[in-house]
């Protein structure tokens, strides 16, 4: 008897060591399990010499050994060895990672993995962040809550990304798991302060509540007051994205009652005066702090600017602080308050702080240990030069546009990029928004920063060439894939021809995630990538001239990938249907209402195709505007 391919599905991961995932699929088809070592008949996944010994290993010995395997790649590999290992691995896996909530059903997951303590679940494709996916598409948490309530009595941690979560879900989660400890919601929506209130009042063992970049409806509910009275075991409270007023007195009480609190990120309705009061209580223990507005509150006694605020000493007690963010409505005059902590910071997020070069300089000068820096382009190229001069340990840089329109001025350019590449040789990850760029600067970065794993360049004006030479940006990106041997994630922009894609296909052997927009000339572009990049997992493309021929050239690859997204390209309904017919374990979704009105061979210019591997039948919760092929 053999396990069908369903159970061998490898889960994509974000670390660097994924085994080639086609192994899981081909070996499962060839597999013919037998309990007595059958040598050559046991399928390509089983080393010959081990087959006779496997059935001698006692389950409980295996159990003890497999407890030590924590990485899911290792566990996936171990589960393929034989039936016995598969069974024991399933029972000992405590952290379950599901990269696409529609790839496997809650029932199947809980049938296989019975003792899960921690669940990571991801939903919508990333382009949903940019309004390319209509509301109501799916990724509902509800069926998972229902299933987990039954199956996992020891579930204590849930981490969701881009899922649709309702108030009822939160309440049910808390009700069914009284010992629940950790909830992390990243880019989620569908719930409000009402759900939060219910959740925090029911979860008496809550350690972590992290709401990150999520949309939280304002039900005018004072959710902070709903935390239980008395001593709390809260270690982390992150609510900087919650756009609702909060009851500060209740927050202050909560912080005072939480001796284990290490991470606190406030929303913009907490003033600088209120922040300083919280730092007096919890400052020395905090490792992660989000400052809130970093500005005065709305109601200030006229004529005096809160004279009791001691800007100089407020942060001196924060000896444990390594990660600082917030500054949501910053008054730059107050920035010197953070001088005492700069030298210890490894992570600084100024990406909501509208500050210029001169305001940045005195701060960044002290930040020699900085590894992660997020900032707005308001600091200009000169600001980046200042960063490059001091932050020699920098691993990750993100430069966001303060004016995110195509025709904005663009205060940073290739000058800033070049400076960073020269000053920060340990750079591993960069996200850079700009209006002007040159191939030369990108090439320089490819040579100066050999450790680059993530390179995301967004030249905001579409089809923009090298602004000095007028050439396409092909050579710059080519240099990145060629010289940065560890590169796994790439986002391209600017004027790009098929040549750029030929470079990616030729050199980007480790690329797992690729984002393409307004690029390429013809089907060849996409073909190069699908044929050349064996590790490709996530491919998202918009507004590029790739059609059915290109789509059909990737059939060998699609089961190895988590998903492919193509919107406003040159696909036809016919092409999509063909893929769906040839690949039964691929779900091909056409998104947008006019796919049905179209003729089979009409080119669908404004519509989207989202396709993903799945061991289930196509989902039944799809809304009207989704057609599943």
């Amino acid at each position, binding site marked *: 008897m053999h396990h069908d391919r369903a159970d061998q599905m490898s889960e994509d991961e974000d670390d660097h060591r994924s085994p080639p995932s086609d192994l899981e699929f081909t070996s499962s088809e060839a597999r013919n399990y037998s309990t007595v070592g059958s040598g050559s008949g046991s399928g390509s996944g089983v080393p010959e010499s081990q087959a006779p010994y496997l059935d001698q290993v006692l389950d409980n010995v295996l159990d003890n050994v497999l407890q030590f395997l924590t990485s899911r790649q290792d566990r996936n590999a171990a589960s393929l060895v034989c039936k016995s290992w598969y069974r024991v691995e399933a029972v000992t896996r405590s952290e379950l990672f599901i990269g696409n909530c529609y790839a496997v059903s809650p029932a199947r997951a809980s049938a296989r993995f019975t003792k899960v303590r921690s669940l990571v679940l991801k939903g919508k494709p990333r382009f949903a962040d*940019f309004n390319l996916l209509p509301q109501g598409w799916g990724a509902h948490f509800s069926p998972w809550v229902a299933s987990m309530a039954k199956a996992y009595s020891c579930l204590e941690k849930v981490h969701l990304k881009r899922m649709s979560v309702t108030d009822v879900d939160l309440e049910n989660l808390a009700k069914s798991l009284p010992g629940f400890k950790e909830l992390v919601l990243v880019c989620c929506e569908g719930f409000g302060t009402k759900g939060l209130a219910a959740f925090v009042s029911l979860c008496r063992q809550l350690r972590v509540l992290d709401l990150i970049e999520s949309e939280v409806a304002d039900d005018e509910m004072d959710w902070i007051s709903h935390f239980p009275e008395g001593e709390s075991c809260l270690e982390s409270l992150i609510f900087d994205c919650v756009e609702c007023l909060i009851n500060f007195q209740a927050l202050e009480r909560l912080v005072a009652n939480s001796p284990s609190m290490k991470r606190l990120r406030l929303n913009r309705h907490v003033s600088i005066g209120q922040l300083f009061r919280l730092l007096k209580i919890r400052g020395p223990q905090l490792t992660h702090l989000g400052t809130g507005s970093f500005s005065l509150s709305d109601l200030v006694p006229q004529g005096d600017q809160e004279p009791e605020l001691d800007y100089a000493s407020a942060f001196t007690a924060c000896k444990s602080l390594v990660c600082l963010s917030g500054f949501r409505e910053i008054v730059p005059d107050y920035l010197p308050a953070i001088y005492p902590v700069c030298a210890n910071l490894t992570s600084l997020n100024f990406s909501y702080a509208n500050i210029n070069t001169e305001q940045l300089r005195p701060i960044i000068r002290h930040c020699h240990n900085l590894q992660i820096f997020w900032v707005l382009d308001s600091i200009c190229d000169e600001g980046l030069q200042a960063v490059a001069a001091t932050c020699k340990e920098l691993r990750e840089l993100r430069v966001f546009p303060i004016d995110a329109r195509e025709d904005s001025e663009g205060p940073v350019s290739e000058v800033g990029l070049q400076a960073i590449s020269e000053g920060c040789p340990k750079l591993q990850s960069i996200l850079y928004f700009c209006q002007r760029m040159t191939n030369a600067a990108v090439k320089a970065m490819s040579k100066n920063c050999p450790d680059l794993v993530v390179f995301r360049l967004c030249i905001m004006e579409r089809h923009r060439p090298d602004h000095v030479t*007028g050439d396409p940006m092909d050579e710059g990106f080519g240099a990145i894939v060629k010289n940065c041997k560890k590169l796994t994630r790439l986002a391209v922009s600017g004027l790009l021809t098929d040549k750029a894609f030929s470079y990616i296909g030729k050199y980007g052997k480790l690329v797992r995630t690729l984002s393409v927009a307004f690029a390429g000339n013809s089907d060849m572009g996409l073909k190069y990538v699908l044929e050349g990049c064996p590790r490709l997992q996530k491919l998202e493309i918009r507004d590029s001239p790739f059609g059915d021929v290109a789509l059909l050239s990737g059939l060998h690859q699609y089961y190895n990938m988590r998903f492919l997204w193509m919107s406003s390209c040159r696909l036809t309904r016919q092409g999509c249907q063909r893929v769906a017919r040839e690949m039964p374990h691929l779900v091909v979704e056409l998104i947008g209402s006019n796919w049905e009105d179209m003729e089979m061979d009409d080119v669908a210019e404004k519509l989207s195709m989202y396709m993903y591997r799945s061991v289930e039948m196509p989902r039944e919760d799809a809304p009207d505007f989704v057609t599943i092929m």
Partner: protein
Amino acid sequence: MEMERSVSYESDLNFKATELRLGLPGSDETEKQSTPCVRGHKRASSEISEESKGSSKVTDTAPPPAKAHIVGWPPVRSYRKNCFQKNEGEGVGKFVKVSMDGAPYLRKIDLGVYRSYSELLKALENMFKLTIGAYSEREGYHGSEYAPTYEDKDGDWMLVGDVPWEMFISSCKKLRIMKGSEARGLGCSA
């Protein structure tokens, strides 16, 4: 459709996009300009200058399609985009402090919420429980002892209402409701 344009450059030079015309942007129905004309003009001229620069390369690279407003581009999450529209003072969410002579507390209002002077003044009247009176260009505010003033980008104190609303929104840094003789002194051309 702009998609067709970017594809067709493999076969032709896409004359339509490079055509120099005297018409306003938006007069060609395939150029979907949902943004105001001012920006459209700016773009049109920069496109023209780019054409002349890049003309030797025109066979390899196509001229860019019309810069209509594109959904989800640049790829910045709406939460982030909205935060900064606030601070720029161009849209919703521009907070300024309001002081009133004789009042113990400052207030803060969001200028972006109002669409005209009359809306703003009515809100101020409600907030401070007073009447401000009628504005006239020559004489300022009369009919009450209060006059609304504001500090602009250059640090000058101006009478609210003197400049067009849009200009006021982008240059106003803080408001002050003056009372008494000082108020009456404003607005009279000395």
